[in-house]
């Protein structure tokens, strides 16, 4: 059983937070939710884990009891477990530690563009942040996205900080392609869409071509992936999805094969990238 009983942590947090100041609630969130997670991160203090997860969509210390109870009623842990067992079998995938939490429904960007559901994955652990009314297909879409990362990261093991921008582009592209293929074209990140060959070649040249080998600890890495002042939103994801979409049209293969295909093999098949 690799799904952790996060429902108990959440209950403990909402039971204890009443009557506490904002600052105390923040610290309570840190000690009840993030401290147990620190065993899964090497040498990182709970405060940094908390900050990092909050930025990626974890529920904030403002979560109230009513919302958390509604969230619990959805039985997300057992739903996720079923999806996980199926995926693991179908892709012969690894057994990461899985943590399911409510998402932060106060964040507009998260609500508008991700329908309130998001996640974060590492080679050995996976986080899902779900809104209190997440539909089954939405959970499947999110899980497939994150779990595909874990499979690919395990097929191509490196130290986490040695993964490059190109690795991230292909990783995200594969994840979004699988979501659309298995769950439907309306699922996944709503900003990711098909673009013309010319635009793809142009974005590739502008943002990726000369920086493919930039490792993920470089500050520009995440800015290109997620977007930033002057960098279009989710540009790394859009480029990745478009590359995989073209690759799979040209050389169709199974998902398990795709997950194990090298970046270079994929790129070699896409001649439009170079504007040919």
């Amino acid at each position: 059983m690799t799904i952790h009983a996060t429902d108990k942590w959440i209950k403990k947090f909402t039971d204890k937070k009443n009557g506490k100041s904002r600052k105390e609630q923040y610290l309570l969130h840190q000690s009840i939710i993030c401290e147990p997670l620190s065993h899964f991160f090497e040498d990182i203090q709970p405060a940094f884990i908390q900050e990092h997860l909050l930025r990626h969509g974890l529920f904030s210390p403002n979560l109230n009891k009513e919302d958390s109870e509604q969230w619990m009623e959805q039985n997300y842990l057992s739903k996720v477990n079923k999806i996980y067992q199926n995926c693991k079998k179908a892709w012969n995938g690894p057994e990461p530690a899985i943590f399911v939490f409510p998402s932060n429904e106060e964040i507009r960007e998260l609500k508008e563009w991700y329908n309130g559901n998001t996640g974060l994955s590492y080679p050995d652990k996976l986080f899902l942040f779900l809104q209190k009314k997440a539909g089954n297909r939405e959970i499947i879409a999110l899980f497939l996205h994150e779990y595909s990362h874990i499979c690919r990261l395990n097929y191509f093991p490196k130290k986490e900080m040695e993964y490059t921008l190109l690795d991230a582009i292909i990783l995200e592209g594969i994840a979004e392609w699988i979501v659309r293929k298995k769950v439907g074209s309306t699922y996944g990140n709503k900003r990711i869409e098909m673009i013309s060959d010319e635009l793809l070649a142009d974005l590739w040249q502008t943002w990726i071509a000369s920086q493919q080998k930039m490792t993920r600890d470089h500050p520009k890495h995440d800015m290109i992936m997620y977007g930033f002042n002057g960098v279009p939103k989710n540009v790394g994801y859009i480029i990745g999805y478009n590359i995989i979409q073209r690759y799979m049209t040209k050389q169709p293969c199974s998902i398990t094969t795709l997950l194990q295909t090298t970046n270079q093999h994929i790129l070699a098949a896409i001649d439009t990238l170079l504007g040919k």
Partner: protein
Amino acid sequence: MSHYDFCRKNVGRPVKIVTHDGLVHRGIIRRVSPSKVFIDPFDARRGVGGYGYGFFGYGRGLGLGIALGAIATIAFLPFFFW
């Protein structure tokens, strides 16, 4: 322009700050108080990493606080020249 005004006008932009003791800090300006500027140092996320579906910027901002009085120079970091 005072360091305070400069920082206020440029929240969200990447900067390089050199303090009088010679230390160099690079990061994104998150907020400014009358006595300090708080930056998100570029190496802060190192180690926590992971592949996220989205990045939402929510948080308390455990930034690095630098006293405005300690700043010797402050300059923008253009995206392509880091």
